[in-house]
């Protein structure tokens, strides 16, 4: 325990020291960060309160169904924290110099695990915790609960909930590596991926939000009359169910019933934590050795490079410099597990979204309320934008940082930095652009050809803007010493960029709401649909895109050009 506290003390000291010397510039920067985070938290609070008000007062979904929605949203949070912890743990447990250093010291493996686990958990979950806390605050004040419900629920509901997801992630990672030693990493990864895919599909099968919404909307606008659709008993075993149930019973005044779920959450989180420590005690060192073996196996280069698609030795029609940059980028991406594995996970989640959204036609066809149609259109559109933003923050933001300490080679070479960065940016932009266009088409084609076409154009503008902002911000907050792209994408700079993205989403709602609802009004009345408003909006988006992209990219290149 003494050793543990000693290490934690120095880690805290390191965090403070790494903030740099105190001066006016750093103070202003810190103040700016605090202001942005505060505005963001207030924004989430206001948005969540309005959504709660809308669902309960306008759509009148009733308390029961409202808490089913919370249950579904919490499942997404659970998966995000869980998968995030598996992926980030791989780097923090095994790939950091700190672990190499600690392993040479007389410290137990369980303690090393503990230090790195907390490091990992708070690093990768702090923004999510901020979002949930703001939502809890809006929930508290909407339902006139006492103010101290906020710290109590964050401490005894949300933290244990996230802790279960995090410890489960760490346990799964250790198990993967332990089992990989016997069966091979490929088989284990395929099995785990299949289990995750099946779990997600089963969750949506047992508690399908689409089925839920479809059933409920059969009773629209008298949704309060709906009570027939109950979830499968299997989902009652999930921690997100316990949180949703606890909130439901608290707001309906039955604290005793809620207490049972709080108790369950705390007990299970403690048990998971103890179990992770036990596994770490037995397996941490063994899995570290497995990691070393795997790294060594993976890095043994086959002598015959010519079979590789991106081999430098293959002839190419590209100019030498462009070829060198593109091939480097692709090789580094496919050989870095944290890059391709995260990409695969995100594509998997996007595919689930596409599958879900493709069956939403029932709702659109049956509902004739313009306001509701506008809302459905905007929610789907914003979700698309949110996915594009997630891809951008994960893969574009770390782009400059990933030049890494090898930057000496690029910076001392006779290169035009703007062309260099644009070449790199273009590779990722094209992938995100295609995903964005496919997403938009799949989720919009049921509205009308005209609206879909305009949405495609708007999505193109949005993709350019988000990619550019992430590039510029990534250059501004570049950290060439950080080798882990996931840590770069969840750094303070990335969080600020994410907050800007949220502001951009609000801007999109503001400029799209009136033209889209007017368009639906015109369609409903059978009058000739005027598209001029939609076109003006697209032009405005185009202008905003031009300004933001120019500023972000030119600033980004300028930052890249600074002393290193």
């Amino acid at each position, binding site marked *: 325990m003494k050793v543990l506290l000693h290490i934690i003390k120095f880690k805290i000291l390191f965090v403070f020291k790494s903030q740099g010397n105190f001066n006016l510039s750093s103070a202003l920067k810190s103040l700016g960060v605090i202001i942005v985070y505060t505005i963001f938290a207030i924004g989430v609070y206001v948005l969540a309160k309005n959504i709660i008000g809308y669902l309960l007062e306008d759509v009148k979904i009733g308390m029961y169904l409202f808490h089913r929605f919370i249950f579904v949203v919490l499942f997404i949070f659970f998966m995000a924290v869980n998968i995030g912890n598996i992926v980030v743990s791989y780097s923090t447990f095994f790939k950091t110099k700190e672990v190499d250093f600690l392993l040479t010291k007389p410290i137990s493996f369980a303690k090393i695990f503990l230090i790195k686990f907390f490091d990992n958990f708070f690093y990768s979950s702090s923004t999510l915790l901020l979002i949930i806390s703001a939502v809890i605050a809006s929930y508290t004040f909407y339902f006139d609960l006492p103010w101290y419900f906020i710290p109590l629920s964050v401490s005894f509901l949300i933290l244990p909930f996230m802790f279960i997801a995090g410890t489960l992630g760490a346990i799964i990672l250790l198990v993967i590596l332990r089992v990989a030693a016997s069966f091979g990493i490929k088989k284990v990864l395929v099995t785990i991926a299949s289990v995750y895919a099946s779990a997600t599909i089963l969750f949506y099968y047992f508690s399908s939000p689409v089925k839920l919404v479809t059933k409920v909307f059969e009773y629209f606008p008298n949704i309060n009359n709906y009570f027939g659709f109950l979830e499968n008993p299997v989902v009652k075993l999930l921690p997100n169910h316990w949180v949703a149930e606890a909130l439901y019973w608290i707001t309906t005044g039955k604290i005793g019933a809620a207490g049972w779920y709080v108790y369950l959450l705390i007990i299970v989180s403690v048990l998971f934590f103890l179990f992770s420590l036990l596994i770490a005690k037995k397996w941490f060192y063994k899995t570290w050795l497995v990691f070393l073996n795997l790294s060594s196996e993976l890095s043994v280069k086959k002598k015959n490079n010519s079979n590789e698609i991106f081999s430098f030795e293959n002839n190419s029609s590209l100019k030498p410099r462009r070829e060198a940059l593109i091939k480097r980028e692709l090789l580094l991406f496919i050989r870095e597990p944290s890059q391709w594995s995260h990409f695969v996970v995100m594509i998997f989640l996007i595919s689930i979204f596409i599958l879900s959204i493709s069956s939403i036609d029932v709702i659109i066809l049956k509902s004739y309320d313009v306001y509701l149609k506008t809302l459905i259109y905007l929610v789907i559109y914003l979700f698309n934008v949110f996915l594009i933003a997630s891809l951008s923050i994960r893969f574009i933001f770390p782009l400059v940082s990933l030049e890494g300490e*090898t930057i000496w080679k690029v910076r001392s070479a006779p290169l*035009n930095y703007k062309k260099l960065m644009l070449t790199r940016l273009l590779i990722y932009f094209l992938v995100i652009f295609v995903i964005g266009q496919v997403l938009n088409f799949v989720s919009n084609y049921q509205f009308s050809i005209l609206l879909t076409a305009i949405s495609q154009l708007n999505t193109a503008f949005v993709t350019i803007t988000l990619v550019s902002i992430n590039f510029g911000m990534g250059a501004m907050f570049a950290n060439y010493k950080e080798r882990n792209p996931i840590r770069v994408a969840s750094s303070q700079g990335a969080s600020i960029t994410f907050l800007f993205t949220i502001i951009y989403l609000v801007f999109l709602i503001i400029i799209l709401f009136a033209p889209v609802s007017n368009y639906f009004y015109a369609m409903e009345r059978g009058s000739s649909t005027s598209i001029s408003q939609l076109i003006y909006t697209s032009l405005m988006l185009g202008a905003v895109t031009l300004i933001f992209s120019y500023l972000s990219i030119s600033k980004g290149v300028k930052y890249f050009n600074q002393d290193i």
Partner: protein
Amino acid sequence: MLVLSNLTKKFGNFIAVNNINLEISEGDFFGFLGQNGAGKTTTIKMITGLYAPTNGTVQIGGFDIQKNPIEAKSLIGYIPDQPFLYEKLTGREFLYFCGGLYKINKANLKNKIEETIEELKIGEWVDKRTEEYSQGMRQRIAIASALLHNPKLIVVDEPMIGLDPQSALVVKNILKQKASEGAAIFMSTHSLNVAEEICSRIGIIKDGQMILEDRKEIVEQIRGTDHHNLESLFLHLTK
């Protein structure tokens, strides 16, 4: 080939390099000596364009590194003291990547890479990923990458760190050969023996200022005094 004029670099109030003037011609092998923190690496970073000078200029082959960076950098081969490489690429892939940055055509590049691999004796492990390399291996790959485009100026920061005696000999010979072929070499080193052995000119920097910059002959004359070798002279000047 290399002209430093009133070169100064400040970090806030701290002056890392203070008003350095220096000229190095083709074939010169310049040894740049100094204690830790004297300003050697900062000077090298300004020469290679990694830092922008606060005052003064760096001219390479007549091109100002700040005003004409592309022309100037195409003449430089830079070997840093800590040569970080892309860990997921093999040494050979890294060399191909570097050749591409200097626009060397594929056929020439293949030949040049094979030639350099042979010269530096790195064939045994050049096809392994660089994450497996020792410091010495990295150093040799960095040296190979700096020589691919036949640079007119080779800038080397502490070339012997991590090298075993055989590798050190290979590197010394290659650098000497490049100087004899007409390349100018600017080498920062802590190794006074190496400087004494292979440099034709020597400069000593202390607290950011050049305190000795002269031809080797003058150094030879100094040897006739109390300071019978470079080590003694260096210790005397930098104490």
